[in-house]
């Protein structure tokens, strides 16, 4: 098979220009700010998903957006409608991660469902209420909403900081245990 110059250059680039490594798991996180959906994607080791394919689909499976992440694994999307947004980041070679932004997380638009309406109504009620009259429930709801993006980022950090050695050792232990059970089963079968 003869390789064309373009393919040879691509092959050379792929083989010798090695930059960020990545493991298989792709962590995706998205949050809403000022009618914009911000998307962050990283591999399990913490490396950015550079130029990963991002697809956003609506609840009916229609594609709303298709693009690539930047050098830092980020991209953004201007929200057109209040509804659930499913984000898929494909890092190639069968590796992808997903994240769902629910309608009620999207603010500043006319809500379409009951949940989103409730959240927005609560917010406008709170704004017009004297601070002294805010109930504990309302404060909790405001804080929950504000801290959603922080929670998501903490989740990613926690996932990345998993004790890999501990998991590897437990995996080996499981394997040896499983084969121990197999040995037990076989030895019982062989008993006269």
């Amino acid at each position, binding site marked *: 098979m003869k390789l064309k110059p373009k*393919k040879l250059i*691509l*092959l050379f*680039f*792929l*083989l010798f*220009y*090695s*930059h*960020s*490594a*990545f*493991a*298989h*798991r*792709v962590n995706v996180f998205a949050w809403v700010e000022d009618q914009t959906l911000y998307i962050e994607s990283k591999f*399990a080791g913490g490396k950015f998903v*550079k*130029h990963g394919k991002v697809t956003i689909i609506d609840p009916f499976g229609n594609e709303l957006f298709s693009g690539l992440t930047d050098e830092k694994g980020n991209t953004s999307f201007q929200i057109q409608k209040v509804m659930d947004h499913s984000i*898929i980041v494909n890092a*190639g*070679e*069968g*590796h*992808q991660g*997903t994240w769902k932004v629910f309608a009620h997380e999207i603010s500043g638009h006319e809500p379409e469902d009951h949940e989103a309406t409730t959240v927005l109504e609560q917010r406008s009620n709170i704004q017009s209420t004297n601070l002294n009259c805010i109930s504990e429930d309302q404060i909790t709801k405001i804080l929950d909403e504000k801290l959603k993006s922080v929670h998501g980022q903490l989740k990613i950090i926690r996932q990345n900081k998993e004790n*890999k050695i501990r*998991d*590897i050792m*437990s*995996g*080996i232990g*499981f*394997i*040896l245990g*499983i*084969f*121990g059970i*197999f*040995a037990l089963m*076989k*030895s019982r079968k*062989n008993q006269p």
Partner: protein
Amino acid sequence: MHISEGILSAPVLIGGTLITLVGAGIGFKKIDADQLPKAGVLSASFFVASLIHVPVGAASIHLTLNGLIGILLGWGAIPVILVALLLQAVLFQFGGITTLGVNTIIMAFPAVILYLILKHSLITQNRRKQSVIAFIFGFMAALLSTLLMILSLYFTSDAFNEISSILLAINIPILFIEGIITAFCITFISEVKPDLLLNH
């Protein structure tokens, strides 16, 4: 080489699971009780080797040692790799539960096919010939695994057609590494414990 959840189409997933179940059943029957410790160690080796990733351009590659497992276990390679892949999916989210069948086919079946073709040629007193055959075993097992991965992606979506040659190119270094490691291991085993090559 692990395909994640949500990539493959349902027919590919179902077909892969069914074939793997049959293969694992045959493999499990063919492993003798005294071979199970060896199978456990090989499964653990596969589990750890697949976690070591080498960056190649925008992707990463990893060892599978499926050629070595094929030489030492034959049909037993299927349940051995299935168990390791299951734990990788559960503990590290590498691959996935629904793709377990397809991933097992990708990594275990080339080992079995090569075992059926080359098993007799490995039993030789000529060490150099044995090393060369072991290298071919490791190289070809990794190559067939890569081709199977490309094939399963091809049957899922046309979008993967364009990157097929790139995927193959990315995996070229690992083919040689697999071949060299397999040749080294088999040479070592035939020196210190040759009966490991004969008793299955």
